[in-house]
């Protein structure tokens, strides 16, 4: 029983970090209608950014929770203008080809500069555990998950309690509505892309507490993020969080009862079943 509790808890902690990433992607997809297949590679850049700032400049890991997202927010504007704006309004098949090519390019650039050797932010408590009754949880993972929870709550509050947040949600629900009520869609695209990138930057720091980074990690996270938002229902922030937690828990619990080779297959099987029987996701409208 304690093995199950340990697996579920670890899965929820991992899922909590995935949730931050999934919300970031959901906002970008929802507002910009952009099928972003290079999102995991931007996450990879955030993780490298975290690693280098921590290792070379000795910036505290908690300070990085502000520094890296801020950097991502700043670069999001030129990145949107220069790279993604061209794709707005184009068919999704174009988005997939364009961003998949971008993904390969980013991976190769990362490989050229930083080689394929995995890097990690070596926080002093990275190999320590917190004991909760009969279960042991990695201290770095617990800390990262607490911050992930705070980020999720703050993002939720921003989207549901502020005017700008409401506009973003309105844009997610009905993109045409924004233009009808006189808001410049270009501005709202910029804001949504900035928020998405900020969350990806934050997610990169949070993942770095627990995971290593190498140039090819992005694809895995891209898949997790997309599966999470499709499971939860595209456009539903609540759905993204639930979808992310389902992935996290299914990865750890399935490995316990089934051969570990099926660790990711279970999450993806749930995803396929969902697509067949409830294609709009758990909370999709």
């Amino acid at each position, binding site marked *: 029983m304690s*093995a199950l509790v*340990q*697996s579920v808890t*670890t899965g929820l902690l*991992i899922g909590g970090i995935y949730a931050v990433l999934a919300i970031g992607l959901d906002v970008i997809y929802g507002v910009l209608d952009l099928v972003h297949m290079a999102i995991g590679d931007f996450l990879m850049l955030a993780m490298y950014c975290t690693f280098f700032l921590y290792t070379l400049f000795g910036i505290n890991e908690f300070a990085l929770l502000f520094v890296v997202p801020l950097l991502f927010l700043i670069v999001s504007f030129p990145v949107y203008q220069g790279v993604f704006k*061209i794709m707005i309004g*184009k*068919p999704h098949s*174009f988005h997939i080809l364009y961003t998949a090519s971008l993904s390969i390019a980013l991976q*190769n650039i990362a*490989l050229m500069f930083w*080689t*394929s*050797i*995995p*890097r*990690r932010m*070596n926080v002093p408590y*990275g*190999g*320590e*555990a917190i004991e909760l009754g009969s279960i*042991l949880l*990695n*201290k770095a993972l617990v800390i990262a998950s607490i911050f992930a929870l705070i980020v999720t709550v703050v993002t939720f509050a921003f989207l549901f309690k502020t005017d700008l947040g409401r506009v973003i949600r309105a844009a997610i629900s009905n993109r045409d509505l924004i233009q009808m009520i006189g808001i410049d869609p270009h501005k709202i695209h910029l804001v949504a892309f900035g928020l998405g990138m900020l969350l990806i930057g934050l997610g990169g720091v949070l993942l770095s507490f627990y*995971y*290593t980074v*190498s140039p*090819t*990690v992005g694809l*895995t996270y891209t898949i997790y993020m997309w599966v999470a938002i499709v499971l939860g229902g595209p456009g539903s922030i609540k759905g993204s969080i639930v979808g992310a937690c389902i992935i996290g828990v299914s*990865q*750890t*619990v*399935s*490995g*316990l009862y089934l*051969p*570990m*080779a*099926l*660790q*990711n*297959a279970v999450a993806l099987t749930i995803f396929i079943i969902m697509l067949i029987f409830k294609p709009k996701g758990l909370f999709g409208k």
Partner: protein
Amino acid sequence: MQKVWEGAITKIQAITLIAIVLIAVIAGASYYYLTPRAAAEDVYVGLLAPLTGGLAYLGDLSVKGMGLAVEEINAAGGIESVGGANISLIVFDSGASAEEATTALRRMLTLHPEISAVYQPWPSGYVLASAPIAESEQVPMFCTSWANGLTESGYKYIFRVAPKASDLQDSGVRALLALGEDRTGRKLQRIAFAYDDNPLNKDLMDSLKKVAEDLGRDVVLDETWKSPMTDATPLLLKVQAAQPDVFFCYAINMEDAYLIVRKFTETGLDKIIPQCYYGGGLMHPDFVKVLGEKLVEGKLGISDWNVVAGARSTEEKYKARYGEAFLPKDAALAYGTGWIIKEALEKAGSRDAKVLRTAMLQLNVAEGSATVLWGPPVRFKPSGDIDLGEFACVLVQWQSGKLNTVFPESLATAEAIWPTP
């Protein structure tokens, strides 16, 4: 259909795209025709290793090791019996899958039909897929993969410069159990083994079961995972439930190794169950950098090679040439193979691949750099396996940030410390 494409791309964007493609084609063609080629009289040796993807960090070591050997051979006058010809190394990326590796080998042999030999060290899946190509093209291919099938399938052109899985596992597991039982004074009855999805690992598992049966031990866990691993918690819980006396683990991907090692350490299980790893990430100089000295301390490993006293001078040359902390086994095996190919070319007196293959089977090197890794004589069995004599495996251990050889005693650079009470 027409409407879907309408407005999808503007004329300016289309012209820009065409311009980019044209520039790329012109640049590629210029590079091909203007790049200085090796002199026609050179002997060509191909090197095929992963230079992109998750295993590129290990592929880079092969390039460095073989590169050092070629530099030394050419500086010493090249291949004397082939008119003092220099060796020209042709490096291709085997990519991140067996399909890419086979394509790369075909491309290498098509673009450079004059190649005398190819070195494709591993991963096993890639080498197993490439072996039929080398065989049909009749080009000797050297590898360090442990997969049994490479030299048990009747290939005539495949040469292995390392032990095969069954021999390595037989020697390694016996040595490790003997070491543990000597240090703890109790029988290590229960054995657990977990491994990634590398095709080599079935050979290792089958061999482990055979050794366990011979010794009357129980294999209490046989678990595999799809690399890269998401989280090591399920593995840890399964190992914990199996209650083994020793845990063997093969994780070629350093990220997987990191997750496993950390999970064992943070839960304190590393103080209860001794762990033994295999090659791959464990043997890389960056293993300690990524995991930190504290996490790697005491980790044991079964390997086909590690620095021994006789190879110290080679290690110094390697360190001076590349500024690395030590000579990792993948670089050493590539270096040794470079010199073995040189000796075979000397014996063949020809750059012809078929003649070289015949010379390989007659090779018996008693001195020189080719013997640095295992000592003399260097010779090959008709199966294509190198004759390692007593050197079927070494046990290694990370101690105070250094990777020491702890078995066999005659080669040990440090005494083994059993990691659990």
